[in-house]
């Protein structure tokens, strides 16, 4: 199970980094969100993968999954959604004002 996750995380990271290194803004945004998803999977994997139990410890629970990483991932997902939304809006505004979504043609010294 862990090796599958490792491969998936690797692919997400690889694609994310590749997209971030491209010049188009939209690709960069997709890249950052893939990167953060990879990190969330990493967080889950590193905390130990278990199947068949809820992250709740009741009196009669025989097995449970560590709830902490789930809470962490949830928080992190919320934050990354917020940041991605902001990034999208900013990119849209930049495209409107600067007339391009290519990072290279945004260079210049004007204010």
């Amino acid at each position, binding site marked *: 199970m862990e090796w599958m996750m490792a491969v998936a995380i690797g692919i997400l990271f690889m694609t994310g980094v590749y997209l*971030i290194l491209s010049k188009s*803004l939209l690709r*960069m945004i997709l890249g*950052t969100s893939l*990167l*953060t998803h990879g*990190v*969330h999977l*990493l*967080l889950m*994997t*590193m*905390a*130990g993968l278990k199947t068949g139990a809820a992250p709740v410890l009741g009196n009669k629970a025989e097995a449970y999954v560590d709830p*902490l*990483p789930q809470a*962490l991932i949830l*928080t*992190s997902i919320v*934050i990354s959604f*917020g*940041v991605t939304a*902001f*990034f999208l809006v*900013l*990119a849209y*505004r*930049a495209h409107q*004002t*600067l007339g391009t979504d290519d*990072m290279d043609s*945004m260079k*210049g010294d*004007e*204010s």
Partner: protein
Amino acid sequence: MSNLLVFPILIPLCTAVLLVILKEKILLQRIISTVSALFNIAVAIVLVSRIRADGIQTLHLGGWAPPYGIVFVGDMFAALLVLTAAVTSFGILLYSFGSIEAEREKAYYYVLFHFLLVGVYGSFLTGDIFNLFVFFEVLLISSYALISLGGTRLQLRESLKYLLINIVSSTLFVAAVAYLYAATGTLNMAHLSQRVAEAGQGGVLGVIAVLFLIVFSLKAGLFLFFWLPGSYSAPPSAVRSLFGALLTKVGLYAVLRTFTLIFIQDPGVTHTWIAWMAAAAMILGGLGAVAYNDIPRILNYNVIISVGFVAFGLAAANGDALNGAVFYLLHDMLSKGLLFILGGMMITIGGTDRLKDMGGLIKRYPLIGWMFFVLALAIVGIPPFSGFAGKVLLIRGGLDAGMLTLSLIGLGSSFLVLYSLIKIFRLAFWGDEPKGERSRVNLKGAAAVSAALLVLVIVMGTQAEWVYSYVSKAGDVLVHPALYIEAVMKE
């Protein structure tokens, strides 16, 4: 247990939420912001005196004892930073009344301002590494909004870079937290310190330490800081001074905290890295400060120099050096805030940020000129002012630790700071005024604010011994992490 710890976070949070409702009423927003900032200063003062009297304060949220619950910790280091940040941000708030356009004010400027403060104070006070990430994100997303607020072409372009570099470093932060949780099974900083000490810091923990170092120093502008001068130049001068005074300092606080509390078993690797990065930041920041000819960039490169200087204290890591780092950090917050305010006033009265187009300002605005001069001396570290004590402690600590080269680089960077600031003074205030009518701008309010902050800088220098009695308590916790661990884990 002390509920006092949560107030520095609650006050700006509630203020920000309240101000969202009062979007159109700028006057009311200003009044509420001022009152809230004053409250914050008062709370911070009470907090500092409480810590001096009773030792480190902790707050277990929801009554969950560590290591299970989330904990807020106020040691002297964090409390002093909160106090200085509160004072500095109060000054910047007053300055922004006169300098931020009404459009930006209506576009939730004060709301974002207070959310930023939530993130800053929260990062200082939290005792949990994941909460540190969350508060970092709170302050970062406010700073994203503040940096792009207004939407000029320059701002949009620079905020895209700023956003990208911070998203990548935050992603690495979560990855580092994931590895750390896998390796130690805890997120509480005090507990982490114990676990890391038990396991020794070889192998995987060493890698995690380096990952944390990369993340925090990216945010502090210590490592790969090439985005910083451009991004911090884009927003209006009040926002610039907020960033210059507070944002990089939070990253520095995180570096200082993690590498004096958690990853202390194997200083050979990490602290050597820190030393190299400090040297690079001081040299390259110094060269940048000398090379450029517009005010925002020169000041931003000065921020990088001081980040390198504080990191040098951490690299030396003995009592004097850490005390010096704390002292210098406090001095730097206050004086960098003031420096950016004065820079902003000069841009306003000169009508441009290029030094070549200025000149002769001292005839019309002698007070601002001499305040800038005195502040420049304070930042360089001329004795009666506040930069001196911190620098002496840092250099003494560095020499004690056998870091002769780095100490010399530190002293040399002071000359570059002096040169760059005197260049501003010479070109902007002396010489002939360029032709053409300039309208006189009313800067009485801003000048009064800067004068008050300057008095604080001077008092901090002349009363250095009194300040040192607090700073040395902060340094104690950094030198002896056992104090921190005991305070958090005792119940």
